[in-house]
């Protein structure tokens, strides 16, 4: 018995190491690249031994990109701020609209509620470009093109269905009796939503918010079409690294590292909520 | 009982690492003879289902040995153990009808169709599901699914039949009826069965011997009468028996030729010394404090004896249950006629030495039982 379990441990450890290596290697490699110059990155054969430099990061932060063809102005920090603002604001709007809607879909089975919920989800099926073409024209006519509000509005196409469907599931998992009990105890419908439904679905709402944030952060096409340079997020801004004198791999890598940091930090922070979310089953006990 | 069908030897179950994880079953030893029906009785989390699943092979036996029909089986996969099991959660095959679900094992054994049909019909009639054999599992009630699952297990040829709460979903009236029929079915064929239940009525009605479990420990293993008359410890004494046994801490002392058992709250039970066997008397006096147990039906109202104030008097048709405040606690009496006592009234009770059980207050182990006191 003891022998098999030791062997089991070794096998399991090896398997986990392999999986981690496979998935983490690109990120690890990019992390190394961000501390190298274009020359060391492109040498053959590649090596993990190099002299680290912070030049990529200083270039991004100061906004001055030195290339063979001269110095370029880039607005990476502005892009990073745009990403942060757009994603946060979109998720905030999405939660404010989506959570009550999710509750309604979970609890009030009105005529056509399933159809409406499905229609909202179906926004995720349409190719974004199909929506974008007419949208661009409308936005230009009503003056929403190239505004933060316009972008946040369009981002709801990504954020809202996600929040709606995830949070709805969490609300449905709360036994109706728990809410009935609170109402019978003398609390109004609104108080029951705030004091019972919201806290109990909290981990689910956090998880949905996090996922929505990541989706919004990684969006490329909406911002590419609808926003000009000063409103662009990092995903679009990264195009600036493809310069006339070639691709600036070092700066791209540093840009990636900087741009995944916020989502990464958020995910780490939210992890405990996600785990709590999985143990929501305790409600039913 | 002659030939041993099943033997558990020092069986342990750990969830997690052996010796470190949750110790769900603790060093169980028990023998089951061929043709016996055994009930594993206990509340949820007592280890009874883990034990059953180790016998079936669905759980790994962490330590110890399991012998079944002369073979060592604890390392074998379930299919090689030659056991049949009815699950608490029914687990029917959802894509075939009830008849094919029940007949599954017989068909796999390539029995002639006529035999299969006859056996399915017989067991289905017995369990009152003869009329739903053509239905799909999804379209029948929980109680019907449970009976179909039971039928599927009972129809098989196996060395041992394992029944996990086989009647948990059934209505009480049906449960009473089926208890008798299932017992008859098992006994008539000389099958050996282990039943897991939390319902002592079911255990008493079906089993030849009951294994009472709590905290992963086998508390007592004996016939229903043995467990009732000679509970091994306070747990078994108060767990088995409905209504549960009354228990009171007392202080024992000898005054002249009388044995005084002082209850809390100033009450005093006085018996002639001769009512107790010398070694029992000695054991009580030596310990000073012991716990006295008396079953509700053995408490009688009588003109003399200590007083109790009636808190409740509930008539259940064929019994009256009376609760009375007594010695800082509550004393429960069962009478078989309708009792005419008002709430708040004072009654006097008699506790016959022949009905007393004496337990050690620290270990909870029984020191002596009723009849052997004298």
């Amino acid at each position, binding site marked *: 018995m003891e022998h098999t379990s030791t062997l089991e441990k070794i096998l399991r450890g090896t398997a986990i190491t392999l999986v981690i290596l496979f998935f983490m290697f690109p990120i690890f490699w990019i992390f190394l690249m961000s501390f190298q110059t274009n020359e060391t990155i492109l040498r053959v054969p590649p090596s993990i031994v190099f002299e680290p430099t912070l030049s990529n990061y200083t270039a991004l932060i100061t906004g001055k990109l030195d290339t063979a063809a001269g110095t370029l102005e880039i607005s990476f920090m502005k892009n990073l701020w745009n990403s942060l603002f757009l994603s946060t604001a979109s998720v905030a709007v999405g939660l404010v609209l989506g959570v009550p809607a999710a509750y309604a879909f979970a609890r009030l089975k009105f005529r056509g509620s399933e159809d409406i919920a499905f229609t909202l989800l179906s926004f995720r099926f349409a190719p974004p470009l199909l929506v974008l073409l007419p949208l661009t024209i409308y936005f230009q006519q009503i003056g929403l093109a190239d505004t933060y509000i316009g972008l946040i509005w369009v981002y709801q196409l990504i954020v809202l269905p996600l929040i709606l469907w995830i949070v709805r599931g969490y609300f449905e998992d709360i036994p109706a009796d*728990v809410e009935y009990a609170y109402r019978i105890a003398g609390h109004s419908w609104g108080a029951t939503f705030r004091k019972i439904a919201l806290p109990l679905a909290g981990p689910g709402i956090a998880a949905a918010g996090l996922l929505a944030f990541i989706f919004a952060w990684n969006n490329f096409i909406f911002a590419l079409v609808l926003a000009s340079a000063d409103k662009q997020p990092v995903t679009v801004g990264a195009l600036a690294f493809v310069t006339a004198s070639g691709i600036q791999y070092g700066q791209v890598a540093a840009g990636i590292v900087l741009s995944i940091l916020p989502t990464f930090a958020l995910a780490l922070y939210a992890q405990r909520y996600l785990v709590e979310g999985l143990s929501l089953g305790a409600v039913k*006990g | 009982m002659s030939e041993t069908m099943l033997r558990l030897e020092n069986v342990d179950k750990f969830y997690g690492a052996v010796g470190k994880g949750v110790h769900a079953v603790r060093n169980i030893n028990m023998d089951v003879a061929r043709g016996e029906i055994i009930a594993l009785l206990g509340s949820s989390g007592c280890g009874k289902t883990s034990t059953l699943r180790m016998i079936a092979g669905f759980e790994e036996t962490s330590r110890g040995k399991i012998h079944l029909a002369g073979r060592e089986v604890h390392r074998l996969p379930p299919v090689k153990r030659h056991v049949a099991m009815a699950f608490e959660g029914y687990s029917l095959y959802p894509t075939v009808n009830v008849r094919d679900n029940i007949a599954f094992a017989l068909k796999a054994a390539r029995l002639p169709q006529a035999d299969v049909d006859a056996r399915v019909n017989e067991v289905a009639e017995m369990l009152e599901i003869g009329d739903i054999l053509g239905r799909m599992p999804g379209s029948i009630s929980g109680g019907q699914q449970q009976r179909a699952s039971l039928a599927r297990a009972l129809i098989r040829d196996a060395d041992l039949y394992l029944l996990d709460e086989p009647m948990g979903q059934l209505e009480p009236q049906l449960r009473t009826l089926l208890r008798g029929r299932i017992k008859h079915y098992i006994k008539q064929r000389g099958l050996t069965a282990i039943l897991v239940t939390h319902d002592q009525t079911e255990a008493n009605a079906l089993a030849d011997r009951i294994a009472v479990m709590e905290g992963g420990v086998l508390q007592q293993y004996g016939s229903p009468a043995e467990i009732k008359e000679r509970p091994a410890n306070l747990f078994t004494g108060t767990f088995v028996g409905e209504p549960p046994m009354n228990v009171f801490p007392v202080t024992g002392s000898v005054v002249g030729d009388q044995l005084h058992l002082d209850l809390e709250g100033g009450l005093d039970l006085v018996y002639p010394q001769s009512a107790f066997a010398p070694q029992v008397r000695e054991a009580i006096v030596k310990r000073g404090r012991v716990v006295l147990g008396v079953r509700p039906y053995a408490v009688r109202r009588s003109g003399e004896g200590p007083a109790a104030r009636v808190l409740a008097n509930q008539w259940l048709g064929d019994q009256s249950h009376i609760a009375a405040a007594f010695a800082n606690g509550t004393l429960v009496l069962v009478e078989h006629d309708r009792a005419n006592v008002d709430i708040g009234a004072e009654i006097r009770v008699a506790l016959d030495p022949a009905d007393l059980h004496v337990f050690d207050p620290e270990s909870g182990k029984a020191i002596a039982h009723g009849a052997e006191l004298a």
Partner: protein
Amino acid sequence: MSLQLIDIVKSFKDDVVLDGVSLEVASGETLVLFGPSGAGKTVLLRLIAGVIEPDEGSILINGENMDGVEPEDRGIGMAFQNFALFPHMDARANIASPLTARRESQTGMKRRVEEVAKLLKIDHVLHHKPKELSNGQKQRTALGRALAGEPKILLLDDPLRNVDAKLRFEMRLELPRLLKDQQATVIYVTQDYKEAMALGHRIAVMSGQGIAQIGTPEDIYLAPQNTAIARLFGDPVINLLDVVPERGAEGVQVRLSGTPVPLHQGHAASIGHDCVLGVRPEAIRFVDADAPGSFPVTIEAETPLNEKTVTLAITEKKREILISRPSGTPGPDRGQAHVAIDAGAALLFDRATGNRIAPASAAAKGEPA
């Protein structure tokens, strides 16, 4: 406060659960709703609580129509079968929830919660979250929450179902006092006939889509409306034997194992009709062979049941009968024996309809039919 239900109809999709249920519960009364699962007991409670709406009919609390009145405004306390505790609040906050709704003062709230907790013996676990409580403590917390607001109407939905046998028994003895102290009107749902008999001033037996019989425990046990209800009360279950009453030397009688057994003399009208004789197992006694009205049986098996000994015996006509006697009393355990039926306790039912036939003289005296 009194409670009145008038012609309540409720269906879910095409499934009619309640079809014209009317019910009146007096102030301070405990009414037990008893019946098998699916009989609509829980639906009825929810209708009274106001969390679902009836399709037709009205609910009156103290004469006031509750149509359109929100659950929080009905002044009701309810305990759920699965407890339905708020998992993110400790026991104290759970119990206090009816008081926070009324914006009671902190000190008043604390005092009331502790009072209720003490009564229910959970004052030492008030700071625990539901998942840290044992099943029994959960059940008491749920009960405490229902009681804390001192509601005048208390709905208890099988509150003892999910607790172990020992605690269930203790609570059964304790609850009547607790409920009496609250002076509340109580509707208590259960599937356990013992709970129903022990706790109810009256019992409403639900079956089909409505109430099959309503009456005191005595009415239901001693004069059940029909064989189905007779079978629901009593453990072991009542013996039902097909008989045809006839005129004998001593008046109306039936034949069991060929032996004449006298019946209540008020059953003269049933002579010659197909009937069912209902005899509770405790109304059959073992007697000597020469005792009057005795008939022979063969004993098949003997099992202990809750301080009773239950004997399964077979009559000469191969009919199974159950006989019960207090544990510890003498009786034969195998072979041939003779038994006699307590004629006064025997019930007669119409075989075609299953309805009970009340003996004539008793009916004249106005006994429940």
